[in-house]
């Protein structure tokens, strides 16, 4: 390779105009990079990072909201379930209460009715007995008077006889 010695050294000796142009060019490039290109790209990087972070935050928020809604819904559901079972229990208790009530009322009514009937039967029975006693007495007296004549005119005897007869009838009827 024809490397003349003078030229070889000249390679390492900067020319004035070379220095000037190198400096000018470097300054121009550096100013453009420092003032425009780097800030511009940095802004894009920052905006992108902010956007990605913002999206992540949004997603997190949405997830949280969804979780909350789900929890609320589940709470409501379990609450509703508890309420429903409570209502059912209440209703069941009410129903049995009503039934018991009705039964007891019916029973007391029935007892009342039975008692009333008993009482009225008894009173009618008594009434009948009384009236029968009167009528039968008279009738029997008349009949016996007719049959026995004057023998039985004393009232004491009459009464004695009648009582005996009635007792016998009673005994008959209770048999």
């Amino acid at each position, binding site marked *: *390779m*024809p*490397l*003349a010695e003078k*030229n*070889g050294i*000249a*390679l*390492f*000796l*900067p*020319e*004035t*105009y*070379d*220095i*000037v*142009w*190198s*400096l000018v*060019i*470097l300054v*121009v*490039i*550096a100013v*453009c*990079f*420092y003032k*425009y*290109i*780097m800030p*511009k*790209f940095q802004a*894009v*990087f920052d*905006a*992108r990072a902010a*956007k990605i972070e913002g999206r992540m935050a949004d997603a997190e928020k949405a997830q949280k909201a969804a979780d909350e809604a789900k929890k609320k819904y589940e709470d409501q559901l379990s609450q509703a379930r508890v309420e429903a079972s409570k209502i059912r229990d209440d209703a069941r208790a009410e129903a049995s209460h009503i039934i018991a009530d009705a039964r007891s009322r019916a029973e007391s009514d029935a007892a009342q009715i039975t008692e009333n009937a008993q009482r009225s039967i008894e009173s009618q029975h008594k009434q009948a007995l009384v009236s029968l006693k009167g009528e039968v007495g008279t009738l029997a007296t008349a009949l016996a008077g007719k049959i026995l004549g004057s023998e039985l005119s004393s009232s004491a005897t009459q009464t004695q006889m009648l009582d005996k007869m009635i007792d016998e009838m009673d005994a008959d009827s209770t048999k």
Partner: protein
Amino acid sequence: MVSQVSTQLVLAAKAGPELPSVDDFLPDPILFQGTPFAINRIILIRIVATIVLLLVMCITAKRAKLVPGRWQGLIETLLEFVRDNIVYQVMGEERGRRYVPMITTLFFTIFVFNLCGIIPGMNMAATATVTMPLVFALWTFVQYWIAACREKGFLQYLRGELMPPGVPLPIDIILGPINLLEALIIRPFSLTVRLFANMIAGHLLVATCLAFTQFYLIEASNWAVKPVGVLWLLGGFAFVCFEMFVAALQAYVFSILSTVYINQSYPEVE
């Protein structure tokens, strides 16, 4: 690229292959000769590359959307690579935030300038004069000295460099100057030369392959040497691919070393 080189070679029309030389890296000014604003071929390439880089980046930044398209996604991947894998990985996020624009500027500029070396029509990395890498390195130099003065104080930093804690005095006498030399000269110089030499070597390799391709495949009248030309062409393909890799690699190396140097100006994390 082949046509570009071949045009040059046809114009040259010599007996042997037109091999690249050091003169490629020292082109004569074509505009404003004799003024401090003289422009030669490499500076023209640099200006064009700058305009393309800034146009592409500004338009991408202007159209940047929350949901990136393919192109924006690619640029963002690169930006995030520089931020996360270079700056934050070395310095940590808290310290590194201040230097992300600087390292990003360095990475993108060096990468695009390096790629000019394999762009047809340019065929020369915009970083292939010593000045451009030197200016990048000086920027790093200024940044790590500023960081040192701010974080440790100038004298404290100098003391730490001259007399590293835990080193016995006799060794300090040797180590101190070496450390100072490193912070003052070796770091910027190594940054400069690494990038510059890589670009020169890359250009020489690719151009040599293509010059031999031209010579054996096109200019030679003897059919027997044509396969040799094909081999040189394959070599050219390989080195063009390799140069793409080197362009990215050198941008990465420069950026990460700048970050490391700046980080060394900070006090050790307890």
